[in-house]
């Protein structure tokens, strides 16, 4: 079987596991955890476009994650119906991503990191201090989840399937983008921006498109987060949230399709499940990150692939019989 077919089979098996998950988990607590993993995976996938493929590390992505939730929440509490609020939310995500990107991409490297951190803090300040609009520290609540196409998603399992549908769409989009000419251009601007300019590419615009797509994906995840919790508050926009999304990308493996999912799985699981068994769960999480950095600095997905290749190589070497007459 070729590597290509193995990969396709692995992807189908992965999706089949996710589709059947509520059937064999049953416990609604874990179904909700799975929904959270999917939501944060989508946010991390968005950031991965920027960090992994465009080579731009952002510390302000939690604000793009939260902005859609705030927009929809404010629209609903202002009297708009769910569909109109959803459309407003999408428009606001695009608008804020476009403005955020235009400001942040005046620099790259550490400058870009600092600008994203600063803009993220400004948006956190707006959410926290503009009480008449955002309800300040109390956040914005919505009365109920929407009913897309008349479907009831109030229960944990129906909501899980909504999150899964969006996750699969996001996965399909990023997988396709990576293989596309635009994906190649985005990676080119990461690796050799000078060469890309000489070849006729508009490096700034290519990065800008990557930023807007990244912000849009993370914003969609933020919408799901609002529908999941029925609530969004300034806590979601903090530097800690931005750092967590970044850690999901880096620990899972940046510039990989499944890395963000694995990173989100580790962090959400540790925060929500391990924390109920281990009081100092953040210490354990920190230890996990240290181990990742020491043994698989490229992240879990590419790291495990490398280790597997190494072990496979070792097995193959051992399998070669020693020539006769030579000591083994």
């Amino acid at each position, binding site marked *: 079987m070729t590597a290509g077919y193995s990969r396709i089979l692995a992807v189908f098996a992965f999706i089949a596991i996710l589709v059947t998950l509520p059937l064999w988990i049953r416990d609604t607590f874990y179904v909700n955890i799975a929904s959270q993993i999917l939501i944060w995976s989508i946010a991390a996938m968005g950031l991965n476009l920027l960090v992994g493929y465009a080579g731009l590390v952002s510390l302000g992505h939690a604000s793009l994650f939260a902005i859609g939730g705030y927009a929809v929440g404010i629209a609903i509490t202002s009297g708009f119906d769910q569909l109109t609020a959803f459309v407003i939310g999408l428009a606001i995500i695009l608008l804020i991503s476009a403005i955020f990107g235009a400001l942040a991409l005046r620099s790259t490297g550490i400058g870009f990191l600092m600008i994203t951190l600063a803009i993220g803090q400004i948006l956190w300040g707006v959410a926290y201090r503009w009480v008449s609009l955002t309800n300040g520290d109390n956040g914005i609540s919505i009365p109920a989840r929407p009913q897309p196409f008349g479907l009831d998603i109030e229960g944990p399992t129906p909501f899980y399937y909504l999150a899964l549908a969006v996750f699969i769409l996001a996965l399909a989009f990023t997988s*396709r*983008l990576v*293989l*596309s*000419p*635009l*994906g*190649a*251009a985005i*990676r*080119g601007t990461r*690796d*050799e921006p*000078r*060469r*890309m*300019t*000489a*070849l*006729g*590419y*508009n*490096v700034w615009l290519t990065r800008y*498109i990557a930023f807007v*797509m990244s912000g849009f994906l993370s914003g969609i995840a933020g919408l799901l987060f609002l529908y999941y919790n029925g609530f969004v508050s300034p806590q979601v926009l903090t530097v800690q949230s931005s750092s967590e999304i970044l850690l999901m990308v880096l620990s899972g493996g940046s510039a990989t399709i499944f890395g963000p999912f694995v990173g989100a799985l580790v962090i959400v699981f540790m925060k929500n499940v391990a924390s109920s068994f281990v009081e100092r769960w953040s210490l354990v999480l920190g230890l996990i990150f240290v181990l990742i950095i020491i043994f698989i600095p490229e992240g879990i997905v590419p790291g495990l692939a490398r280790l597997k290749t190494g072990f496979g190589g070792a097995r193959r070497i051992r399998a070669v019989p020693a020539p006769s007459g030579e000591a083994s």
Partner: protein
Amino acid sequence: MNPLRVKGLCKSFGGLRVTRDVDLDVAAGERRLIIGPNGAGKTTLFNLIAGEIKPDAGEISLMGRDITRSPGRARAHMGLARTYQIITLFPQDTLIRNVSIALMGLMPLRWNPFANLSQCRDVSDAAHEALERVGLVHLADRKISETSYGECRRVEIAMALAQQPSVLLLDEPLAGLSVDERRGVQDLLLSIPRDVTTVMIEHDMDVALRFAERITLMHFGAVVLDGTRDEVVNAPQTREVYLAG
């Protein structure tokens, strides 16, 4: 109309004048060699022509159009291509992907987020053709990081030629190559079609003199001499510059 004209070009980095009132007039189809000792300002001149740095004064025109204020990417779309002294490729991508990226730089396809690049027949065929031209089509699917230095030099030339440029700037295309590799790249340079106006910086005089019809000698950022191959080779200034350098 000469495809490349440079007039009164000046550039300083702080107090250091690296390009001093440089004039360059390259005729259509010409093969021009730029020589001079290290620090003469040859690569800076290329960077100015390619739009990677902005001049303090002077004018650059490409195919009769003033490009002095045009961004580097626009110059590529107007028919200017270049190679680098230090190899500048995409090491994690294959040879075919590197050439495909070069080809797409001038195509609207580069903005497409949905097409599968490896299934874009037009790009793939043109990239294979470009690799065949430099004798590397058999390595099309090998990663750049697993490719020898000499082969990388050829890929750089393939990428530049794939864009079908009107003016090609070659910055020391033989630097760091073994004798055998030099011979191969030299043949490749001589096979560049005459409709491509070529300007080359090179220190290997044996190869360079076979290639060039006219030579520009630079020293301390200024053009010292500009003439035919024999004129420049036999001029006392050439010996002075190189012996003094």
